[in-house]
C-alpha cells in the first residue's frame, strides 16, 4: 500500500465516521458546529428527506405597494409553477422554491426580535425581491408578507407568518450628496 493509498483510506474513513455522526442532531450540534461554519460544510449533510416532520404547508411570498396611506392589493410572487410531466427531467423552479422555504425556516430558527428582524438575511432577501416588483405609478413604499397555506383539502386556513414593515422603495430612496 502506497503513502497515497494510506492518506486516501484514512481521509475517507474519517469522512465516513463524521458523516454518520452528522446524522445524529445532538451529536452534530456538539461536535460538528465548527465544520458547518466552514467553507466545506456542505460535505457533511444530514440526510432526512422530508423527515421527521415533512412540509405539509406551502410558503408563499406576497407583496403590496403603498401610495401615501393607500395600499394596493396583495400580489403573490410566483416562485413555483404547477406540476407537469416535464418536471421529470427539467424543473428549475424548485430552486427558488427551496430557497423560499429555507429562508422562512432560517428566520424562524433565528427568532429575531422586532428590532432585529429587518437585519435578518432572509428578511432582507424577501425585501429585495419585493422591491424589484414593478410598482404602480405614485407608489412610495413596499411591504411583503410570508403566508403559510395548507395543502389541498386541508381544513386549516392560510395564515400570515410575517408581515413586514413598510419600506421606502429603493427607487425613491434619497441619493447621497
Amino acid at each position, binding site marked *: 500500500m*502506497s503513502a*497515497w*493509498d494510506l492518506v*486516501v*483510506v484514512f*481521509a*475517507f474513513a474519517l469522512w*465516513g465516521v463524521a*458523516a*454518520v455522526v452528522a*446524522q445524529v442532531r445532538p451529536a452534530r450540534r456538539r461536535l460538528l458546529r465548527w465544520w458547518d461554519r466552514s*467553507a*466545506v*460544510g*456542505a*460535505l457533511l*449533510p444530514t*440526510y*432526512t*428527506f*422530508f*423527515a*421527521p*416532520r*415533512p*412540509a*405539509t*404547508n*406551502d410558503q408563499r411570498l406576497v407583496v403590496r405597494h403603498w401610495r401615501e396611506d393607500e395600499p394596493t392589493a396583495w400580489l403573490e410572487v410566483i416562485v*413555483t409553477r*404547477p*406540476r407537469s410531466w416535464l*418536471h*421529470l427531467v*427539467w*424543473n*428549475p*423552479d*424548485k*430552486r*427558488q*422554491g*427551496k*430557497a423560499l*422555504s*429555507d*429562508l422562512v425556516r*432560517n428566520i424562524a430558527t433565528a427568532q429575531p426580535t422586532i428590532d432585529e428582524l429587518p437585519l435578518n*438575511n432572509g428578511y*432582507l*432577501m*424577501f425585501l*429585495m*425581491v419585493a422591491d*424589484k416588483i414593478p410598482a404602480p405609478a405614485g407608489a412610495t413604499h413596499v411591504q411583503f408578507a410570508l403566508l403559510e*397555506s395548507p*395543502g*389541498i*383539502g*386541508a381544513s386549516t386556513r392560510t395564515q400570515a407568518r410575517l408581515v413586514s414593515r413598510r419600506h421606502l422603495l429603493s427607487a425613491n430612496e434619497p441619493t447621497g450628496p
Partner: protein
Amino acid sequence: MKSSGIALDWTQHLLALAVILSSLEGIVARARFPDQGLLSWRVSRLRSEQFVVGPRARVLSMLLDGRRIWILLGARAAAALCLVLTVAPLPSLIAAAVAVAASLVIHYAIPQGHDGSDQMTLIVLVALLIARLSPPDSVALTACLVFIAGQLALSYFASGVAKMFGSTWRRGTAVGSILATRTFGSGPVVRVLKRVPALAVAATYATVALEVAFPLTYLLPQQAMIVALASFLLFHLVVATTMGLNSFVPAFAACYPATLWVHSLIV
C-alpha cells in the same frame, strides 16, 4: 460491475448529467428574477461580515458578483460536459476539479436553495476527483468507490430511520400530506389519492421500509441486487414525476455503479 475502472467511468458519466442538470437549472432559476431573486449573492453575502470585507469577500465577489455567477455555473456545466465526453484521466481530473471548486463556492456563498441531490452530487464529485488522482486498480480507488457506495447506503438508511421518528410517517399520512402541497404535489395525484386513500398510506410505509432496508441489499445475490437498485431508480423517477425532484435521479443513480461494484466484492 467487472472492474473498479468501469464502475468509476459509469459514476463519472451519471454524475456529470447531475451536474449539468443542476448547473442549467441554476442558470434558468436565476434568470427568472431580477438580481436573481431568492438566490441573490448580493443579499446573501450580508449574512456575515466575512462575506462583505476582507480577502474571502473579494474572492467570492470576483466569482459571483452580478452576472459572473452565470460564468461560474456555465464553467461547471462545461466541466461536466467534459466528464460526459471523456474518461481520459487528465481531462477528467481537470474537469472534476473545476466542478468541485465551482460547487463548493456556490454551496458556501449561497447556502439556500440546495436540496439533497445537490449535496450528494458534491460529495460524489469530491470522491471522483480523488479517484481520478489515484492510480488504476489502487487501494485508494477502491476506497473512493466504497465511500460512494457507503454514502448512498447512509443517505437511504438515515432518512428512513429519521422518518420513523415522525408521527405522520408512523401514522401513514406523510406522503398524502406532502403531495397535497402546491410545492411538492399536484392536483391529479391528490385526486387519485382521495379516491384510493390506501395508496398514500402504502406509499408512506413503503418509502420508510425501502429506505431502512437498503443496507440489507448487500446480502442479495447479484441479479437480485440489480433488481433492487432498479426499484430504487424507479422510486426516484416516481418522486421526480409527482414531486418535481428530478435532480435526485442522476445524483443518486451516479452512486449505483459503485454500489454494484462493492456488492460484487462482498457476494
